[in-house]
C-alpha cells in the first residue's frame, strides 16, 4: 500500500519555463513533507520542506504548495534550468517518529 505517490515517472520541460512536480498521500497522520533531489550514483539531497500547518513554502526558485484537504503537494521550479535535471522524490513523515515515507520519484529533464 503506497502511502505517498508520484504518478508521473517523468517530466520534460524547456529551460526557463516552470516545472511542476506532483505528489499525493493517503495518510492523514503525516505532518511534515519534504522534497529531495537525486543525481545518478549520489544520495538524495534535501531541497525544501513544508509543515502541515502551512500551505506554501518558498526558497529561491523552489516553492512547495500543500493542499491538506486534497492530500496533495506540488513542487514548482521557476525558472527551470538544465542543472535541475534529476530525479525528484517527495517524502512524508508522521508525528510519531522520524522515518520518511517516499514516493517513487519523478525524473525531470530540462532541455536547453
Amino acid at each position, binding site marked *: 500500500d503506497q502511502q505517498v505517490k508520484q504518478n508521473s515517472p517523468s517530466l520534460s520541460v524547456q529551460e526557463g519555463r516552470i516545472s511542476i512536480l506532483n505528489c499525493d498521500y493517503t495518510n492523514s497522520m503525516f505532518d511534515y513533507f519534504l522534497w529531495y533531489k537525486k543525481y545518478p550514483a549520489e*544520495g538524495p539531497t534535501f531541497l525544501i520542506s513544508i509543515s502541515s500547518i502551512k500551505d506554501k513554502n518558498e526558497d529561491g526558485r523552489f516553492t512547495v504548495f500543500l493542499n491538506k484537504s486534497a492530500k496533495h503537494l506540488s513542487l514548482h521550479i521557476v525558472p527551470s534550468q538544465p542543472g535541475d535535471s534529476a530525479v525528484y*522524490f517527495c517524502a512524508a513523515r508522521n508525528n510519531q517518529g*522520524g522515518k520518511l515515507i*517516499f*514516493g517513487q520519484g519523478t525524473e525531470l529533464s530540462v532541455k536547453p
Partner: protein
Amino acid sequence: GAGVSQSPRYKVAKRGQDVALRCDPISGHVSLFWYQQALGQGPEFLTYFQNEAQLDKSGLPSDRFFAERPEGSVSTLKIQRTQQEDSAVYLCASTMYTSDTQYFGPGTRLTVL
C-alpha cells in the same frame, strides 16, 4: 564539514554470502536511518537509531538483516545469506535530532549474483 559517508560504494556478492555495509554519519548527529532503494523505486525505511539505541526496526525485511551502532556513531548494516532480491542501493541518513532534516550518504549499491 564532511557529510555522511558510506562504504563500500559498490559490493558484489554471491548468493548465500554475508555482507556488511558501513555508514559514517555527520559528526555529532544523534539519529541515524537506513533505507533500501530498489531500482526505479523510492527509498524504503529499514531501521533507525538514536545514539546506540535501535528504536525502530520495523522495516527490516527479514531476520537476515541486522543493524548495529554500538558506540552511537558509525553504524553497520549486515545481511546474512544474501539473496538476489536483496540487490538494491542501501542508503544511510543522519540528523542532529529525530525530527530534523535527514542528510543522506551516497549509498552502497549491492548486487547479489
